[in-house]
C-alpha cells in the first residue's frame, strides 16, 4: 500500500526571465510518508513547491496525481486536489480568531448564505484537538506564539481534507520544545495517511523525521535516499556538489586579549540582572531557548531598548549606550535577527544598505561623497564575496545569504570593537553559512569581541570559544572549553534533568 506514488512530478522546467529556476526536475511522493526536500537556498525547492500548489505554472513537464495527469492552474486547484502549502512566512491574520483564520477564503455558508459560525467553531476545534493545540477556535490569533500560529496554518490545511501537506522550513522560528511538538504532530499526520513534504536546511531535523529524502541542486534532481540510507555527509556533498570538510573548523589561532565588553547587572523589561564579559578576539555564544531573553539582552547592550538598571563597560570604561547611535559611535554593532524587518532596506541599493552607518564619515557639510561610498561598497562586495549585480543593485532581489552578507558588511564598516550577531545564519544556505563562519573567525582574529546568538546548537558549539546560556530572562550559566557540549548547554537552557536534556539535544545530533 505504501509503494505506489500518489504524486509524481516529472520533467518539470521553469524559467524566470533569463534565469533557469528548474530543469527536468522530478519528485515522487507516496501516501503516508514524510518526504524531505533538501537543497541550498536557490536550489529550486520553493519554486517546485509553488508549482505543485498552483502558484506558478511550469514551462514544461507533467504532474500525476493517483496516476492521472492533473493541471494545477491556481492555488484553488491545488487545494481542491488536496495539496496544501504552508509558507515559510506565516500568513495568519492576527486580528481574527483562530476559526476565522482556519476558514479564511472558504467560509462555510449556512441558511440564507450567512456565515455558519457554529460549524466553523466546531470543525476547527476538532482539528485543533487532533493537533493537540493548547488553544481553541475562539482564541484571537494575535495572542498566539509563532509556533501556535503555525498550528493554525496546519489546521487550515487539514480542514480542506488535504492529502499532501507541504511545509517550507517550519522550524525556522521555533524553539526546541516547540520543534519537538511539531515533530509529534507531523508524525501523527503521517500515520493518518497524509503525505508530508518537508523542506528544511537542518540535517538533524531531516534525520529525525524523514522517511525519504530528495536532494536537488541548481534546479535539478540530484538523488533520493530512503531512511536507511541517510548519510549527512553524503547529503551535504550532494547539495553543494563538493565535500564541506572544514564546515565548523574555524577556531584555530584565536588569542583572546583584554576584556572588551563587560555587562554588569544589566536589566530591562524582559531581562533580569545579567552579567557577563567578552574579551577582544573571543567569540562568545549566547544560547538558550527562543524567548529566553537573548535578543532582549543584546538590544539593551546596543541601546535599542530602555535599561532598568546595570551598566555596560567597553574596554574597561563605563559607557552609557542610551540609543543605537551612541552605541555605534562607541564601536558596538548589532545585527538583528529579523533581517528583513529590522535590518535591511529592501527597496534600496546595496550601496545604501552597506554604507548607511558610515555615511557621516564620508561627507563634507552634510554632502555625501558618493565616490568614496562606491569604493567602500565594491570593497565589501569583493571581501565578503557578495553576489550582487553591482553597488547599485537593489537588495530586495538577493538571496537570503547575500542579503545577510550585505547586512554584515554594514556592521563591518563601523570597524566594531564589539559585534553582536543575532541568528546570523538563519535562512541562509550551506555555502553562505560557511562563509559567515569564516568572517566571524576573521573578526575574532582581528581582535573584535564577537557575541553570537544562535538557536542552532551545533553552530554555537562549532564556532564559539565560550557559551553563556540564558533561561527565562536571566543568565543560568556559562560553559567553556571541553564543557561546551549540547548536553551541558541544554541542561542550563531548560534546567531539565539530565535525561530530558539529552533527549532534546539528541534532536540536534546529526
Amino acid at each position: 500500500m505504501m509503494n505506489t506514488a500518489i504524486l509524481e512530478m516529472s520533467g518539470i522546467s521553469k524559467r524566470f526571465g533569463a534565469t533557469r529556476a528548474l530543469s527536468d526536475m522530478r519528485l515522487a511522493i507516496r501516501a503516508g510518508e514524510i518526504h524531505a526536500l533538501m537543497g541550498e537556498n536557490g536550489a529550486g525547492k520553493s519554486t517546485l513547491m509553488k508549482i505543485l500548489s498552483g502558484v506558478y505554472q511550469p514551462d514544461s513537464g507533467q504532474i500525476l496525481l493517483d496516476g492521472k495527469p492533473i493541471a494545477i492552474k491556481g492555488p484553488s486547484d491545488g487545494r481542491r486536489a488536496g495539496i496544501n502549502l504552508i509558507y515559510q512566512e506565516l500568513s495568519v491574520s492576527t486580528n481574527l480568531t483562530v476559526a476565522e483564520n482556519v476558514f479564511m477564503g472558504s467560509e462555510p455558508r449556512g441558511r440564507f448564505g450567512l456565515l455558519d459560525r457554529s460549524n466553523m467553531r466546531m470543525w476547527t476545534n476538532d482539528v485543533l484537538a487532533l493537533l493537540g493545540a493548547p488553544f481553541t477556535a475562539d482564541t484571537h490569533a494575535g495572542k498566539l506564539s509563532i509556533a501556535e500560529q503555525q498550528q493554525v496554518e496546519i489546521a487550515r490545511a487539514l480542514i480542506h481534507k488535504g492529502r499532501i501537506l507541504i511545509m517550507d522550513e517550519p522550524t525556522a522560528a521555533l524553539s526546541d520544545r516547540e520543534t519537538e511538538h511539531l515533530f509529534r504532530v507531523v508524525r501523527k499526520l503521517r500515520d493518518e495517511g497524509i503525505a508530508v513534504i518537508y523542506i528544511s536546511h537542518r540535517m538533524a531535523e531531516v534525520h529525525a523525521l524523514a522517511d525519504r529524502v530528495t536532494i536537488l541542486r541548481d534546479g535539478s534532481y540530484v538523488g533520493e535516499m530512503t531512511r536507511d540510507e541517510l548519510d549527512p555527509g553524503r547529503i551535504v556533498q550532494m547539495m553543494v556538489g563538493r565535500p564541506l570538510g572544514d564546515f565548523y573548523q574555524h577556531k584555530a589561532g584565536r588569542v583572546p586579549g583584554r576584556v572588551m565588553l563587560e555587562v554588569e547587572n544589566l536589566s530591562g523589561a524582559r531581562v533580569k540582572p545579567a552579567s557577563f564579559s567578552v574579551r577582544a578576539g573571543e567569540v562568545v555564544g549566547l544560547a538558550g531557548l527562543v524567548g529566553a531573553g537573548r535578543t532582549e539582552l543584546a538590544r539593551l547592550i546596543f541601546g535599542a531598548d530602555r535599561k532598568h538598571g546595570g551598566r555596560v563597560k567597553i574596554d574597561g570604561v563605563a559607557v552609557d549606550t542610551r540609543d543605537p547611535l551612541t552605541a555605534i559611535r562607541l564601536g558596538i554593532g548589532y545585527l538583528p535577527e529579523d533581517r528583513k524587518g529590522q535590518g535591511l532596506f529592501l527597496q534600496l541599493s546595496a550601496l545604501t544598505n552597506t554604507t548607511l552607518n558610515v555615511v557621516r564619515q564620508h561627507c563634507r557639510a552634510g554632502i555625501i561623497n558618493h565616490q568614496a561610498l562606491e569604493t567602500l561598497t565594491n570593497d565589501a562586495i569583493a571581501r565578503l564575496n557578495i553576489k550582487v549585480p553591482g553597488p547599485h543593485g537593489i537588495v530586495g532581489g538577493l538571496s537570503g545569504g547575500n542579503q545577510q552578507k550585505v547586512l554584515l558588511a554594514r556592521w563591518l564598516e563601523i570597524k566594531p570593537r564589539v559585534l553582536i550577531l543575532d541568528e546570523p545564519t538563519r535562512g541562509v544556505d550551506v555555502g553562505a553559512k560557511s562563509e559567515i563562519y569564516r568572517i566571524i573567525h576573521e573578526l575574532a582574529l582581528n581582535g573584535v569581541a564577537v557575541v553570537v546568538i544562535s538557536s542552532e546548537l551545533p553552530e554555537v558549539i562549532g564556532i564559539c570559544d565560550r557559551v553563556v546560556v540564558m533561561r527565562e530572562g536571566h543568565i543560568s550559566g556559562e560553559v567553556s572549553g571541553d564543557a561546551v557540549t549540547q548536553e551541558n548547554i541544554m541542561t542550563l537552557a531548560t534546567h531539565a534533568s539530565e535525561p530530558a536534556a539529552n533527549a532534546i539535544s539528541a534532536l540536534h545530533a546529526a
Partner: protein
Amino acid sequence: MSTQTIASQASLPPRRGSLAGQLFNRLGMLPVLIVLYLVFYGLTLYFSADGTSNFMSADNTMNIMRQVAINLVLACGMTFVILTAGIDLSVGSMLAVSAVLGMLMSLPDHHPALAIPTFLIAGLVLGMLNGAMVSFLSINPFVVTLGTMTALRGAAYLFADGTTVLNQQIPSFEWIGNGDFLGLPWLVWIAAGVVLLSWFILKKTVLGLHIYAVGGNPQAARLTGIKVSFVLLFVYSISGFFSGLAGAMSSSRLYGANGNWGVGYELDAIAAVVLGGTSLMGGVGTIWGTVIGALIIGVMNNGLTILGLSSFWQYVAKGAVIVLAVILDKWRQKQAALN
C-alpha cells in the same frame, strides 16, 4: 533567487519585457506627459475654427508653467513627506494661513518689509507643528494633518476676518507673482529653485539618504542609529516651509489672500507625487518624477480649459487620467522587475 540568478543577471543584458516596457522603465512618466501634450495640441487644432492652435504657443506654454509653479512647490514638499511613508493633507490650509498672515503684514499700518519672512516663517512653524505631533507623539500622519488641515482652514478665515485681505501696494514681493527674470516669470524660477534644492537634499546629503531609509524601514533605520524623529520633523517642516512659499507666490500673484485660498491643493500635490512614481509605502521615488507629475496635471488643466470643457467634466477627466497613469506605472514596474 539563487546565486546563479544574480551572477547571470549581472552578466547578461536584460532580455525579457517588451521594448515599450524598457523605455518606460528608463523614462518613467515622461512619455505620458509628451503624449498628453501632443494629444491636446491635436485636439485644440481639430476643434479650432481657423485651423490654428494656441495651445503650443510660447505664451500658453509660459502660462502652463506659471500655473504649475505653485502646485509643484507644494508637491516637492509632499514628496519629502511621502518618501517617509507619511502624508501631509494640510498643505492647502498652511498655504492659506501663511498667505493671510503675510498679506496682513504687508498692509501699510503693519510692516510691509517683513511680509516675505512672515509667509515663510508661518509655513515653517505650522509644518514643525505637524512634524512634532507625528514624530514625538507618534500620531498617525494622516490623522495629524487631517486635523491641522481642518483647524488651520478655520484659522485662515479667522485671521482674515472672513473677508479677503487686499493690498495693491506690495513692492516688497510683487515681483514674486508678477515679475520676470531673463524672460521667465519669477514663479517659474522659484519653482525650479525648489526642485533643485529638493533634489540636492534627497540625492546629495546624508539627510536625504536618511529620508529614504526611514521610509523604507523605520525599524532598521532606528537600529542603524538614524534619528527617525528628527527626519520626520524635517520632512513635515520643509513641507510647511514650501507651503508658506506657495502662499507668498499665490497672494503676490493675486494681490490678496483669504481663508479660501488653496482649498483642494493638497490633492493636486499628492496626485503629482503619485503620478511621478513615488510609492505611498515610502522609500521609493524621485523629485524628477514629481516634476513630471505636476506638469501632467498642469497640461491637463490648461488643455481642458482651452478646449472649453466644463469644469465638471474637467474633474472627471483629471481623475481618470490620474488612475490610468498609476495603472500604467504599475505595469511599468512589473516590466522593470522582469528585466
